[in-house]
């Protein structure tokens, strides 16, 4: 299951932006679709020793070695077995390609500015630094993840400490 994320969806309101919605357990999260390069299945991941558990390892993306991280483990949710529904969202941030394991991808949504509420002060597990806000859509709540900040954060140990994170 691999589908190229299409970024030139019908233009709606100029101010509204599009988000890719994915699920982790019962919760719904969303990332800026412009950061998403593609979506693929979870396969052939080579484990790397001596790294935090949410870094699942590296995989071969058409000749490029790409690290795979599990957001479930990062967000301290329950661990689940990977199944046929498990997908990897490949994002391109800060000139790096990173794969994110999520439970499933549901849809692409367009959110107008007034639908995005500021992120509340969260507890310890999910720092509001990583969040660009909360998307409210009728009875659904989407946690908008600022994927760039999340992945370049020192805590992720994806980037060498010496490298400057933009």
């Amino acid at each position: 299951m691999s589908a190229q994320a299409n970024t030139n969806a019908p233009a709606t309101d100029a101010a509204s932006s599009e988000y890719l919605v994915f699920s982790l357990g019962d919760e719904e999260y969303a990332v800026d679709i412009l950061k998403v390069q593609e979506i693929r299945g979870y396969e052939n991941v080579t484990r790397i020793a001596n790294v935090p558990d949410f870094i699942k390892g590296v995989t071969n993306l058409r000749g490029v070695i790409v690290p795979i991280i599990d957001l479930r483990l990062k967000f301290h949710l329950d661990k689940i077995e990977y199944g046929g529904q498990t997908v990897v969202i490949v994002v391109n941030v800060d000139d790096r390609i990173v794969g994110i394991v999520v439970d499933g991808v549901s849809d692409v949504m367009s959110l107008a500015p007034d639908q995005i509420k500021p992120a509340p002060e969260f507890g310890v597990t999910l720092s509001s630094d990583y969040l660009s806000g909360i998307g409210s859509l009728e009875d659904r709540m989407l946690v908008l993840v600022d994927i760039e900040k999340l992945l370049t954060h020192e805590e992720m140990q994806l980037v060498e400490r010496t490298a400057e994170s933009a």
Partner: protein
Amino acid sequence: MDISDFYDTFFEEAEELLADMERLLLDLDVDDPDGEDLNAIFRAAHSIKGGAGTFGFTVLQETTHLLENLLDHTRRGELKLRRDIVDTFLETKDMLHDQLDAYRNGGEPDAEAFERISRVLQQMALDELGQGEAVKTTTKPEPAPAPETGDSAQAGAGAGAERDEEGASAPRRLAITLTGVSDKDRELLVEELQHFGTINSQSGDVARYRVLLDSSESQDDIEAVLCFIIEPEQLSIEVEATAAGDGPAAPPAVPTIPAVTAVEEKASLAVEASPEANKDGPKSGAASPRSSGKSSGKNAKGSESSTIRVPVDKVDQIINLVGELIITQSMLEQTASDLDIVSHGPLVNGMNLLQRNARDLQESVMSIRMMPMDYVFSRFPRLVRDLAAKLGKDVELVTEGKSTELDKSLIERIIDPLTHLVRNSLDHGLESPDKREATGKSPTGRLTLSAQHQGGNILIEVIDDGAGLNRERILAKARSNGLAVTDSMSDDDVWQLIFAPGFSTAEQVSDVSGRGVGMDVVKRNIQEMGGHVEILSKPGQGTTTRIVLPLTLAILDGMSIRCGSETFLLPLNAVLESLQPQSDDIYSMAGDDQLLKVRDEYLPIIALHHALDVTDAKTELTEAIAVIVQGEGRRYALLVDDLVGQQQVVVKNLETNYRKVPGISAATILGDGSVALILDIADLHRLDRRKSQQRHEAKHQHLQEVSLA
């Protein structure tokens, strides 16, 4: 077409010639210079002069002209070489380089510098040869063709052999006399002769048969053909002068006359040179390679279009695609290997062919970007020579591993840091000759530059046998600079201090080095290339600075091994042997550390599953396989589950999208498309040590807690 289109070609060629010139000048034995080398230096100057003249680079042309004159006298042995003369030549060469750069950047060279260097050269000509202006006139009439035509003139007067070649194009009558040839052979011969031209008349008998042939072929060619049938003694070929008339005889005579005059003219102009050159056999012989060199130079010019300039990213794209092709090919191969050979013969053959072609393609593509380290090392003889003279030190430069290849982008960036390290070694490392003698060392210091591949890295070392780093002085300096240091720091940590910004322990600042800017820049440059610097130093024995650079583009010969269900790759050149450890050969040291005795050598054991947390691996030492590996000069016994096989892999950088992983140098993609990690032996050992230490501390703490309770 504009002539400026050729500027670049000229600049490049001139640069190469200057580099050649410098190398030859440096290699020159002042007391007994090699004639060939002197000629080569002269030729280089001459070619540059010619090019500069063509393109109208007047200053460059005039400077080379002056240099060329002096070189000309040198190669004739009239100007005795001295060290200071070579120095002046080298200085001129630098000047030429500056002028070349100025022209390349579309400017005019520094007129003042030109004035100065011309004065120096003219003065030298005056002092050494006692002829200032005479020098100029001597070589102005191009003497190059003189020896050649002189030869042919002489030869032409003597025998007809030379004339044949010259007159080969004009048909003339040849009298061919056959002696003692049977009728049958004669018929064959006459038939053959008809291919060369028209037979005018033939007569005679078996004892003596005469054929008159009008032919434009040379006598040698005809003789060569006929000698397939008869013996050379039976044959004689002469030019029939009477029958052929004046026509054919005249052309060969024509060039003789100007040739003689050329020689005469030259003799009258060159005050002392020509008579000697003409009398003396070897000397005129030495002059002729020059003309041949010129012609080969022309050939080189003709084939210049054989190189093309391609943007590096295009090459990179090809390299990536080829890497993909190799992986696809491996995948196909794996699938095909399950098929029955008998029923799928053509497919299997095709797969083999594909494999070979893909490998060849990969190798050729890879080689595009690779350049030998010689490109860097060849700059240093000059630098070392000049610096050593300036510092009053005696230094011998040794280079090793010149042919080691490194990626082009890296090779260009390594020059500056390496230059800095060499300067440092010369200035601070190596002692003055009397100081060296006082400590019982040879007065000549030794500076070694070496390059070698190690795993996915290239190792470049600058080794001097000087005084070594001074621990106390570095520590004292570090304190005064406000760095946090303690006396108990390990040597390695102390040496790393010199990479701190603004750090220099030199007693005085020289114009060579010691300002304290530099080592930190060196380190930063190398880190930017993804490498690191290490320093090894022993007091009184010298210092080794080791630069380890990744070879990101290299294809690696690897040994794939298995540990649990995971596959790893070992660089093949790190693998020495493998064996099954016996329990008798395993010794433990200080409780946790284990050593394996291999032929009277005790090697530290690194258990791979231990270092890399592999869960399902064999834990019993005697069930595992010990691979004896080498890393950073030390040997280890690496315990793995299985050896899988040997294979060539494309090294993929982990840092592109991720980061450096302890114990791992890079990654690669296996035939099935999965990623395998390439182990870094030395780093793996460090990782193993660190983990053992952690475990040890944890255990210790636990024991303390127990005893407290």
